[in-house]
């Protein structure tokens, strides 16, 4: 549906990728680790290797979580835009199919937050 209005009603989106100084927005979440209340947002260069995103962005963001000591994200179960996918850690974000405002989710069976795997609450 379109907006009912008294005149022409069309606008440029506020969050176009070109507004982010060469970066694109990527959202990330280590699933079940909900002591981090929400997925995280980062502006990242599209040519950044996926491995750097994991080692340089995702891992540091969650470093204070007690599960971090034991995690191997390479063995995680990944989703890109809510569809399962297998990232190539040596290839860039773009080559891995990420685009502006993509969502990356990783689940690590066995490491399911502070309350453990049963209730997976933390």
């Amino acid at each position: 549906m379109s907006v009912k209005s008294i005149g022409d009603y069309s606008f440029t989106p506020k969050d176009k990728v070109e507004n982010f100084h060469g970066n694109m927005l990527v959202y990330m979440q280590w699933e079940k680790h909900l002591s981090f209340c929400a997925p995280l947002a980062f502006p990242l260069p599209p040519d950044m290797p996926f491995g750097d995103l994991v080692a340089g962005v995702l891992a540091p963001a969650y470093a204070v979580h007690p599960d971090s000591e034991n995690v191997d994200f390479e063995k995680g179960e990944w989703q890109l835009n809510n569809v399962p996918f297998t990232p190539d850690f040596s290839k860039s974000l773009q080559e891995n199919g990420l685009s502006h405002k993509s969502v990356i989710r990783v689940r690590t069976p066995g490491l399911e937050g502070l309350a453990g795997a049963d209730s997976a609450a933390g």
Partner: protein
Amino acid sequence: MTVHKRTKKMGIKERYASMTRDLGWETSYQPMDKVFPYDTYEGIKIHDWDAWVDPFRLTMDAYWKYQSEKERKLYAVIDSFAQNNGQLGITDARYLNAVKIFLTGVSPLEYAAHRGYAFTGRHFRGVGARIACQMQSVDELRHAQTQLHSMSHYNKFFSGMHSHKMMHDRVWYLSVPKSFFDDAMTAGPFEFLTAISFSFEYVLTNLLFVPFMSGAAHNGDMATVTFGFSAQSDEARHMTLGIEIIKFMLEQDEANVPIVQRWIDKWFWRGYRMLALVSMMMDYMLPKRVMSWKEAWEMYFEEAGAALFEDLGRYGIRMPKYHEVATWEKDHLSHQVWSTFYNYAGAAAFHTWMPNDNEKSWLKDKYPDSFEKHYEPRFDHFTAKKEAGERFFNGSLPMLCNTCQIPLIFTEPGDPTTTCYRESEYKDDKYHFCSDGCKDIFDYEPEKYIQSWMPVHQIYQGNCGGAELEDVLKWYQMDLGVDNGDYHDSEDFKMWTEWSENQKKAV
């Protein structure tokens, strides 16, 4: 000497008619449609504006008289509150963090409502509706002003209350209430009234006012309580306008029903999302609790709301869409929101803390199905870290919902361990949402919400004072290390502890 014959005084009915309905006229130099261009384009059909009923029969002269009387009483109490160091009578300085949210999140909405009703009143061709809007517009301005004055006493002693207007415009979590009202004000006049007068003031108002006003009473905040009393009769009038406008639209034309239903669906959900802030206040921020969010939801929405919508059923109106999601969330909402502000206490203009043992027992008692299983492990972890001197702060910015602008903190209905993601694609760009309710709102009018001023995205675009968190917080006009952070590390806490000790010594 001539004797003037005294003309007979007008009767109440006559007087009322001449002071209200007689103030309008059919324009002749310009067609009515040109003078009132906004009251038709939304598709609402009105055949007889005179069918509008004014339940209060209030005229402006009487209005001024009542209001000034209330004002005199209120300011007398505010003065004595200040002179008697009323701030010492509150239960605990933690309470004031709820006041800070009210000051920066709610009072500016009263001012926005003042503007919204002035605009809306101007654009109705029916005089009855126009006068009701005019009075509400003045009420809202008065509420904004008296709230600021009531709370200003605390600003002399406590942090985070020095720049409410700027904070409302800039601070990330305040974009939630701000964008809510901006959305309503940029709609047409009928949608505005459905949004604010009906969905908010009628359906959801008790969930806002009961916690704030009873919360204030329970916690010794006489300033806010007195303001609440002074606003009560106005609120009754506002609620009546809310139900009146809905019935008026529904009775005027059957074609109005689906339009009104869609607005009710939208504004129920938007209002409910905004009240997430209130839920955490009730369950976590009031040192002396009134009732739990869950109890309030059951009483004011599940019971009272169901009765209301049953009544509206005769017009063909049903319960708002996704009300069952909101009801499912009642066990989780406040815990998820409090955890969010605990995560981001470094970037908020109020303090957060973890519940103590007594408070945890209360939470377990009120939330037997959720607190112990899902939230206590998280909160115990936060407490342990704090005690070890490593207070947890989330150092990364969160992903926000493109409609309500709350971070994606809510979980899938039925599964409190999995974050709820919803997504839409519009003109080659992705948009993300916290819920089906927010996604539906976007999908219906995407062109409106692609303009959302999303705080996290604005920071990354470089529009918020700089690249570092510190720059952003300065741009928010926050006093770093004073307004933000953990309550137990705050100046508020230090000062309150000293006062309390002095009071004990004096006794």
